C-alpha cells in the first residue's frame, strides 16, 4: 500500500449551459482512480461553480499509481433523467511519483469532451504521499525519470549511459470490440482514451523496471508510439536510452528552485547500480517467453527490407517457394553516393549488369555479415544470453525463415557486387556463430589495421558486446562520447497483421522488432561499428499490411559513459584525444571497406581518412566544425501501387520498397550536391502505405562539414549527342544547375577554406587515383536511365566551375536518356530556395547560426490533399506530392514572416495516406527569431574564417565541458562562431546575445509574470482570481456589480512556451517536472457546423495545445521542451457530416528562467560557480 493520492476539486468556470430552460448548469464532479469514485456536491445553477470539496483520498499501490490516470468527470445533475456528462479531465500523476519532479498538481484544466471539445475549465489540486517500498520484487518503478529529450537533459550530467530499453504492450482496440456497435461514439472514444492512458502508464512502469534492473535512474530519448492495427489490436510501444543521471546541483540556485524534498521513495541510485548485473543489458523481459519463431512461419508473411543507401539491387527469388514469405534486404552505408551507383530502378534482373564489378576483396568479408540472414541470429543469441527463452525456438526458426526468401543483397551503397551476395551463404554460419557467442563484431574489428581504432574499440566493445542491442535513441551526446560515425543503417519489414496468432499477446510483435533490430545491429557491424545512435522505430499500417521500420546511425562510442563513474577518470585522457573532426573519420578499415567509398584525408587534422559524404540520423555534434550554414533537404517520392489484398499486397509493397528507398537516396544526394554540401544530419525516412500508392519522404539537414572534402558539381550527360537541339537542351540544363550550385554556395555561405586547398589536394589526388582505378571498370557498360558517377571532388570553387563544363572526370554525372530523368532533374531545380531571412532545418538548431533570440513560435500545420484523378502516373503523383510539400513550406514562411530573420528548427513532416485519394501531411516545427545585427556579423566572420582557426577553436571547445555549452543554448554549436569565443573571454562574448534576448522578446513583459520566482506567487494568484470571481459576479450570472474591484483577469493564465527542441534560447532550464504524454480523440457528427474539416481540425489542435499547456502550468512549469506530435490520424466522412481525429503528443514539462534574470539575481556568484564547476568537471 505504498501511496496515498489526494485530490481536491476547487471550482469550475465557463461551463456550458446544460439546462436550456434556465440557461444554467447544476454541476458536480466525480473523481475516479482505479475502482474508487468520489463525488462532490452539486453546485446548483451556476456556470462558475465553487465546490471547494474536501480532499478525496485514494489508497493505492504504486503500481496503480503509475498505470492509472486520475479521472475527473464533470456532470450536470438532473433530477428526473440521467445526469449528463459535460466532459472529463485525465491527469497523469506520474510526475508526482518522482522526487525531483513536481510536488503538486494545481491549476485550471480544460474539461474535454470527445464530441464537443473543450467545455469550460476546472480547478483541481492533486498530491501524492508515497511510502518507501524497498521490495526487490516490486512491479513498480516509481522514481525513474523519463525524458523525451534526445540528449542528456540540460540540468543533468550523465554518469553512465546504460543503453537500450524497449517495451511493447498490446490490447484489443475498444473501437473494434463488439460492444462498440451498441455504445455511443462518446463512450467508445473515452474507452479508447482511457485504455491508451492505462497502456502507456503500464509501458512506462515496465520500462522503468528495466532501467532499475540495469542500474539506471532515468530514461532519456523516450519515444512512445501507438500502432492502431485495427482488428488485430492496439499496440503501444516505446524505446529509450537508460541512463544514470546526476543533477548538476550548482546550476539550480536554491533560491529559485521550489522545495525539492519530497517523500517519494525514488530508489537510491547507488543501490540500484550495484543491484543489477550489466549483462542483463536491455533484454526485454516479457513475462512470457518468446516462442514466436515457429509461429512466425505459419503467420506467414514477413518481408524485410533494410536499406538506406541503395546502390543497386538484386532480387533473387526462389520461385518454388513462391512469394509466400520473402525477405529482401539490403544494407546501405550511407556515405556512399558513390561511384557506379548501380543506379537505377533496374529491375531485379538488371542487377547482373554489375556483376563485372568486383569490389576489393577485403570488403566482401565484412559485407557478408550484413548479408547474412540475421533474423535468425537473435534467437541464437537469446539462447546464450537469456536462458529464459525456450529451446525449441532455435530448432524451428532457421528452417522457416531460411527457405522461403528471396533477397536483395545488401547494397553497400555502391554498386553491389554479386559476389557479395553469393558469399552470403558461405559466411552465414560463421557469422551466426560470432553473434551467438556475443562477440560478433569483434571479429571484424580485430582484423583491422588501425591500432588506434582497435584500441578504442576494444575498450568499448566489452561494454557494448554484452548488450543484445547496443542502441541509443539519443541524437545529441556529451562531448567525447561519439568517436566515429559510420553511416545510416536502416531496416524495414513488411508484415501481415491478420496472421498474428495471438493478437492480444505481445510476442509476435516483439519478435518482429527483434528481427529488425538484429538486422540493424548487423548492418552497423558491417560498417565496422559497434553501436547505433540516433535510433528510432516506426510503423506504417494500411489495412492488414504493416511496414515496420527502424533506422539509426552506426557509430563507435567512447567507453567513458559506459561503465560507472569510478572508471570514468581512467579514461579521461581519451576525452581530449579525439579532435573535433574525429567523428567524421571512418570507423571501418580503409583496406577493408564495407563498400567502395572515396576516402580522402580529413581536411581538419589531415591524419585520418574521411568519406566524401556522410549521412547520419543524429544532430550535428556540438564539436563539429561546419562551414557556412545548413539547410533542410527533402526527398519526396510517390509511387503508384496496384490495389491488392493480403500477401499479394505485401509482396507488391515489399517489391516497391527498395526502389523507393533507392530513389529517395538518389534525390537526397543530388539535392545535397546541388547545395554544395557534403553531409546530412537528422535524416529521417518515412514510408507510408496507402491502398493505391506508397509515399516516401526523407528529410534531413544538409551541412558542409569542414572535415570532409568539398563535393563536386553535378554534370549532365546526354544520351544522344548527335542531336543538336538536344545538346542545347542539355547544356541549358547544365548551366542552370551550375548557376544553382553557385547561388546556393553564396546563400549558405559555403566557402571552403582556400588556404588549405592546395595542400590537401596533394593528398586527395594520390588517394583518389587509387579509388578511381577500382571504380573505373563499371562505368562504360552501365547504361541505365539515370546514372550517377562520382569522382573525386575539388575543394575550391574555381576549379569546380571550370571542370563542370567538360569531362566527366571531376563531376558528379547525371545521365539523362528519357523523360523520367528529365523530370527528375527538373524537380531537382524546382525546390524553391527559402525566402530571404529564413533558414530551415530538421535538426535541433541550424548549424552555423548562433544569434538566437528568445522569441519563438511552435506550430503544427496539417494539410490534406485530394487527388481528383485516380489514374495517375508516377510522375504525376510525384509532382503533386512535391508541390504539396513545397507549398506547405512556402505557406509556413509566409505565416511566420513577421519573425524574420528566423529559422524553422526541427521541422518534422509526418505523411500519411488516410484514404485512397488523400495525402495528408502534418508539420510540426518551431520558428526562432535571430538577432538581426549579429546575423551579418557572423556571416562576415564565418566568411573569412580559416581552417586553422577552426581547428584551434575546436580544440578550445573541447575544453568546455558539455554542461557549459548546455548552459548557453544561444550558441551551442562550437564551430563557426567559435571565433568570438576564442578571441574574447567567454562571458563577454555571450553578453550581447543575452541582452538582446531580453529585449527582443516581444512578449517579455508578459512572460515576466510567470517566471520562476513568481512561481509560488502564481499559484496564489490563481486562487485569488477564483475568489475574486466568487465575490464579483460574472456578467452571465446576471447579478449587478458596483464599482467593483474586479481586476483585469489577464494574469490568471500562465504563459506556457512549447518547443520541439530540448532547450529554449536565452534561458536556462532549472527543473524537469516530468513527461507529458497525452492522447486525445475528437469526433464530430456535425462537421459542417464546426466549419468543415479545417474548422474541426483547427479547433482540435488548438485544444490539444491548450490541454498540454494546462497540464504543464498545473505542474508548475512554464514550458514544454522536446515537444512532438507522434500521431495525427484524421478520418472524415463528409457525406455523413462526420469526422474523427486522434492525436498523440509528448514532451517534457520544465521550468526555465531567463539567463538575463539569472545574472541579475543575487545568483551572480552562482553562475560563476556554474562555470567553474562545470569547467572542473570537464577537464
Amino acid at each position: 500500500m505504498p501511496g496515498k493520492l489526494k485530490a481536491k476539486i476547487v471550482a469550475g468556470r465557463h461551463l456550458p449551459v446544460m439546462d436550456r430552460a434556465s440557461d444554467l448548469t447544476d454541476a458536480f464532479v466525480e473523481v475516479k482512480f482505479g475502482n474508487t469514485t468520489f463525488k462532490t456536491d452539486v453546485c446548483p445553477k451556476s456556470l462558475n461553480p465553487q465546490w471547494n470539496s474536501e480532499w478525496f483520498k485514494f489508497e493505492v499501490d504504486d503500481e496503480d499509481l503509475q498505470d492509472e490516470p486520475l479521472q475527473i468527470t464533470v456532470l450536470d445533475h438532473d433530477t428526473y433523467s440521467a445526469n449528463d456528462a459535460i466532459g472529463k479531465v485525465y491527469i497523469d500523476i506520474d510526475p508526482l511519483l518522482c522526487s525531483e519532479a513536481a510536488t503538486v498538481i494545481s491549476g485550471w484544466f480544460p474539461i474535454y469532451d470527445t464530441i464537443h471539445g473543450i467545455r469550460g475549465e476546472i480547478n483541481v489540486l492533486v498530491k501524492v504521499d508515497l511510502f518507501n517500498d524497498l521490495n526487490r520484487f516490486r512491479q513498480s518503478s516509481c522514481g525513474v525519470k523519463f525524458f523525451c529529450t534526445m540528449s542528456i537533459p540540460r540540468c543533468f550530467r550523465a554518469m553512465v549511459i546504460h543503453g537500450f530499453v524497449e517495451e511493447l504492450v498490446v490490447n484489443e482496440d475498444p473501437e473494434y470490440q463488439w460492444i462498440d456497435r451498441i455504445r455511443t461514439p462518446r463512450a467508445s472514444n473515452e474507452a479508447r482514451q482511457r485504455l491508451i492512458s492505462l497502456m502507456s502508464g503500464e509501458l512506462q512502469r515496465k520500462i522503468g523496471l528495466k532501467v532499475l534492473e540495469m542500474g539506471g535512474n532515468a530514461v532519456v530519448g523516450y519515444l512512445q508510439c501507438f500502432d492502431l492495427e485495427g482488428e488485430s489490436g492496439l499496440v503501444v510501444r516505446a524505446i529509450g536510452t537508460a541512463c544514470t543521471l546526476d543533477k548538476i546541483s550548482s546550476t539550480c540556485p536554491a533560491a529559485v528552485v521550489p522545495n525539492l524534498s519530497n517523500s517519494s521513495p525514488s530508489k537510491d541510485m547507488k543501490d540500484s547500480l550495484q543491484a543489477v548485473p550489466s549483462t542483463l543489458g536491455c533484454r526485454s523481459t516479457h513475462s512470457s517467453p518468446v516462442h514466436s519463431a515457429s509461429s512466425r512461419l505459419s503467420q506467414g508473411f514477413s518481408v524485410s527490407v533494410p536499406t538506406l543507401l541503395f546502390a543497386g539491387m538484386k532480387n533473387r527469388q526462389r520461385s518454388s517457394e513462391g512469394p509466400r514469405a520473402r525477405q529482401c534486404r539490403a544494407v546501405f552505408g550511407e556515405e556512399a553516393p558513390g561511384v557506379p551507383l548501380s543506379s537505377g530502378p533496374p529491375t531485379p534482373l538488371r542487377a547482373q549488369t554489375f556483376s563485372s564489378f568486383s569490389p576489393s576483396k577485403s570488403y566482401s568479408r565484412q559485407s557478408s555479415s550484413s548479408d547474412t540472414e540475421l533474423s535468425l541470429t537473435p534467437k541464437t543469441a537469446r539462447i546464450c544470453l537469456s536462458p529464459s527463452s525456450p529451446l525449441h525456438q532455435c530448432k524451428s526458426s532457421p528452417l522457416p525463415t531460411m527457405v522461403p526468401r528471396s533477397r536483395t543483397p545488401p547494397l553497400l551503397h555502391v554498386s553491389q557486387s554479386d559476389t557479395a551476395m553469393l558469399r552470403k551463404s558461405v559466411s552465414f554460419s560463421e557469422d551466426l556463430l560470432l553473434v551467438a557467442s556475443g562477440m560478433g563484431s569483434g571479429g571484424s574489428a580485430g582484423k583491422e589495421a588501425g591500432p588506434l581504432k582497435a584500441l578504442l574499440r576494444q575498450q568499448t566493445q566489452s561494454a557494448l558486446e554484452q548488450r543484445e542491442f547496443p542502441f541509443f535513441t539519443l541524437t545529441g551526446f556529451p562531448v567525447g562520447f561519439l568517436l566515429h560515425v559510420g553511416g545510416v543503417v536502416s531496416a524495414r519489414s513488411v508484415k501481415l497483421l491478420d496472421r498474428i496468432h495471438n493478437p492480444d499477446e505481445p510476442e509476435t510483435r516483439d519478435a518482429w522488432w527483434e528481427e529488425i533490430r538484429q538486422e540493424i545491429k548487423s548492418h552497423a557491424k558491417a560498417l565496422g561499428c559497434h553501436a547505433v545512435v540516433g535510433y528510432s522505430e516506426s510503423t506504417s499500417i494500411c489495412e492488414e499490411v504493416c511496414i515496420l521500420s527502424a533506422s539509426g546511425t552506426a557509430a563507435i562510442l567512447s567507453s567513458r559513459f559506459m561503465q560507472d563513474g569510478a572508471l570514468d577518470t581512467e579514461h579521461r585522457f581519451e576525452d581530449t584525444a579525439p579532435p573535433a573532426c574525429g567523428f567524421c573519420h571512418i570507423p571501418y578499415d580503409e583496406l577493408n571497406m564495407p563498400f567502395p567509398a572515396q576516402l580522402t584525408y580529413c581536411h581538419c587534422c589531415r591524419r585520418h581518412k574521411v568519406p566524401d559524404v556522410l549521412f547520419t540520423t543524429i544532430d550535428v555534434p556540438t564539436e563539429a566544425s561546419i562551414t557556412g550554414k545548413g539547410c533542410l533537404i527533402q526527398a519526396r517520392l510517390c509511387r503508384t501501387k496496384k490495389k491488392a489484398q493480403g500477401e499479394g499486397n505485401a509482396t507488391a509493397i515489399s517489391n516497391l520498397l527498395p526502389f523507393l528507398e533507392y530513389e529517395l537516396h538518389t534525390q537526397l544526394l543530388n539535392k545535397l550536391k546541388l547545395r554544395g554540401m557534403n553531409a546530412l544530419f537528422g535524416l529521417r525516412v518515412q514510408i507510408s502505405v496507402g491502398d493505391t500508392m506508397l509515399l516516401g519522404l526523407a528529410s534531413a539537414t544538409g551541412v558542409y562539414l569542414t572535415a570532409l572534402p568539398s563535393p563536386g558539381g553535378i554534370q549532365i550527360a546526354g544520351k544522344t549527342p548527335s542531336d543538336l537541339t538536344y545538346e542545347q537542351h542539355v547544356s541549358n540544363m547544365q548551366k542552370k544547375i551550375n548557376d544553382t550550385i553557385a547561388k546556393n554556395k553564396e546563400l549558405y555561405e559555403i566557402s571552403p577554406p582556400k588556404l588549405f586547398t592546395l595542400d590537401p589536394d596533394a593528398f586527395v589526388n594520390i588517394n583518389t587515383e587509387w579509388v578511381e582505378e577500382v571504380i573505373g571498370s563499371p562505368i562504360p557498360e552501365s547504361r541505365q536511365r539515370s546514372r550517377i558517377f562520382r569522382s573525386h571532388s575539388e575543394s575550391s570553387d574555381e576549379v569546380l566551375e571550370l571542370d563542370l563544363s567538360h569531362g566527366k572526370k571531376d563531376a558528379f554525372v547525371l545521365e539523362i536518356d528519357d523523360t523520367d530523368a528529365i523530370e527528375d532533374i527538373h524537380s531537382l531545380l524546382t525546390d524553391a530556395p527559402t525566402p530571404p531571412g529564413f533558414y530551415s532545418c530538421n535538426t535541433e538548431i541550424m548549424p552555423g547560426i548562433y544569434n538566437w533570440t528568445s522569441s519563438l513560435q511552435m506550430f503544427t500545420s496539417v494539410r490534406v490533399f485530394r487527388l481528383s484523378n485516380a489514374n495517375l502516373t508516377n510522375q504525376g503523383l510525384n509532382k503533386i506530392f512535391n508541390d504539396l510539400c513545397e507549398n506547405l513550406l512556402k505557406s509556413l514562411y509566409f505565416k511566420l514572416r513577421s519573425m524574420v530573420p528566423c529559422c524553422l528548427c526541427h521541422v518534422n513532416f509526418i505523411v500519411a495516406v488516410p484514404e485512397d485519394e488523400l495525402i495528408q501531411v502534418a508539420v510540426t516545427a518551431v520558428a526562432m527569431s535571430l538577432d538581426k545585427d549579429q546575423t551579418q556579423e557572423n556571416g562576415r566572420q564565418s566568411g573569412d574564417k580559416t581552417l586553422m582557426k577552426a581547428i584551434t577553436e575546436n580544440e578550445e571547445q573541447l575544453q568546455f565541458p558539455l554542461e557549459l555549452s548546455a548552459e548557453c543554448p544561444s550558441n551551442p554549436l562550437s564551430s563557426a562562431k567559435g571565433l568570438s569565443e576564442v578571441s574574447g573571454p567567454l562571458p563577454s562574448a555571450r553578453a550581447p546575445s543575452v541582452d538582446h534576448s531580453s529585449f527582443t522578446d516581444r512578449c517579455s513583459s508578459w512572460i515576466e509574470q510567470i517566471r520562476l520566482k513568481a512561481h509560488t506567487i502564481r499559484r496564489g494568484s490563481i486562487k485569488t482570481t477564483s475568489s475574486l470571481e466568487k465575490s464579483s459576479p460574472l456578467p452571465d450570472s446576471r447579478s449587478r456589480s458596483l464599482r467593483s474591484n474586479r481586476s483585469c483577469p489577464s494574469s490568471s493564465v500562465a504563459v506556457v512556451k512549447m518547443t520541439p527542441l530540448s532547450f529554449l534560447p536565452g534561458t536556462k532550464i532549472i527543473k524537469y517536472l516530468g513527461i507529458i504524454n497525452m492522447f486525445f480523440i475528437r469526433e464530430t457528427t456535425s462537421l459542417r457546423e464546426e466549419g468543415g474539416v479545417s474548422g474541426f481540425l483547427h479547433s482540435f489542435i488548438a485544444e490539444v495545445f491548450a490541454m498540454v499547456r494546462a497540464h504543464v502550468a498545473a505542474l508548475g512549469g512554464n514550458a514544454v521542451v522536446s515537444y512532438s506530435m507522434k500521431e495525427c490520424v484524421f478520418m472524415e466522412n463528409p457525406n455523413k457530416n462526420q469526422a474523427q481525429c486522434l492525436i498523440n503528443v509528448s514532451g517534457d514539462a520544465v521550468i526555465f528562467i531567463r539567463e538575463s534574470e539569472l545574472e541579475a539575481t543575487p545568483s551572480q556568484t552562482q553562475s560563476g560557480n556554474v562555470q567553474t564547476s562545470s569547467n572542473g568537471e570537464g577537464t
Partner: protein
Amino acid sequence: MLLVVNTAAVVKMSVELDVFVGNTTIMDKEVYQLWLNGYTVSDAVKVRMEGGVMEECEASADVLLSDTMDQFRTFQMCERLLQNPAKLANQLLFQIPPDRQAMLIERYYAFDDAFVREVLGKKLSKGTKKDLDDVSAKTGITLKSCRRQFDNFKRVFKVVEELKGPLVENIKQHFLLPDPLARDYAAIVFFANNRFETGKKKLQYLTFHDFAFCAGQLINNWTVGAVDNMVEDMDVDLDKEFLQDLKDLKILIADKDLLDQHKSLVCVALRGKTKVFNEMEANFKNLSRGLVNIAAKLTNPKDVRDFFIDLIEKFIEPCRSDRWTATDVNLYLTHYTNSAHILDSFKHQTVWTRYMGVIKSCILRMYHE
C-alpha cells in the same frame, strides 16, 4: 506517352484541409481588420494582393488564400470569446499575449462613425437590426460588419443597462475597453436608452463625436448618478426629480419683469463686446424662451427625444442666421447664465446652473460655424 503526359497535366488536386495552429496564436492586424470589415475570404485576398504583401514575401496567391482562410477561421473561433472579453483573458484555448488581446478587443468593439450615426438613438431591437441592410447600402459598410457593430452595441447595452455604478467604468470593466472607446459606448447606450432623435435632416451635420460629447455632459450632470452614484440605472436615465425641477425655470420667461431684467443685465454686460449685439438684443426674448421651454418640457419623454433638434431649432439656427460666431455664442451664453444669478426674485439657482452648464457646452459643441 503523350497521352500519359496529358492526363498528368489534367490532374488536379484539391486542398481538402489546411490548418495552421501556433502555440501563440498568430493574428495579422491587417487581416483582422479585413475580417472585421466583413470581407469575404476572396475579397480579402484581393485587397491583400493589392496591398503588395505578395511581392514583399515572394508569396503566391495560393499561399495568400491559405493564410487568409486560416486567419479568418481563427478569428471566427475567437469571436465567441471577443463577445465576452473577460473570458478571452482567462480562457485556455488560445494563447494570446495581453497586448494582442487588448488589440483584438479594441478593434472588435471599434465602430464606423458612418454606421453609428445611422443607429444612434434608435432602439437596439430586432426591428432595427432588420433594417441594417439599408444602413449597409447607404454607408457602404458591409452588412456583416454592420451586424457586428450593431450586436456590439446591443450586447454592451444589455449588460450595462442593469448594472449599478458609473456607466463608463462598468463598460470598461466588463468589456475591457480603453477609456475613449468606453466613453463612446456609454454615449451609445445613453442615446439608445433615451432614444434621442439624431436622424433628422437638421441634425445631419453633427458628427457622432458631437453627440458623444453631449452625451457625456448629460451623463455627468443630468443623471441620477451625477448626484448619487449608488443608485440603479443612475447613469442611463435622466434624473426625474431634476427634470421636474426644471419646470420652475419657466418663471424666467413667464414673469415679464424678470425677463426684461434678465435681458438688460445681459445687454449691459455684452455691449461693445460683440459685433452681433443688435441682433442679440433683438432676439434675446426669443432665445431665452426657447431655452427655458426646452427645460420645462423635458419631463415629457417625447420632448427628451427631441432635445437636440429643439436646441438647433430654438437656438442654434437663429444665431446662425444672424451670423454669430462661436465666440459670440459663448459670450452670450456665459452672461445669459450668470445674469440669472443676479436676479433677486429668481430662486432656482442650483437647477439653473445644472441646466445651463450642460446646455452651454452642448450648444457650443453643436455650433459649427
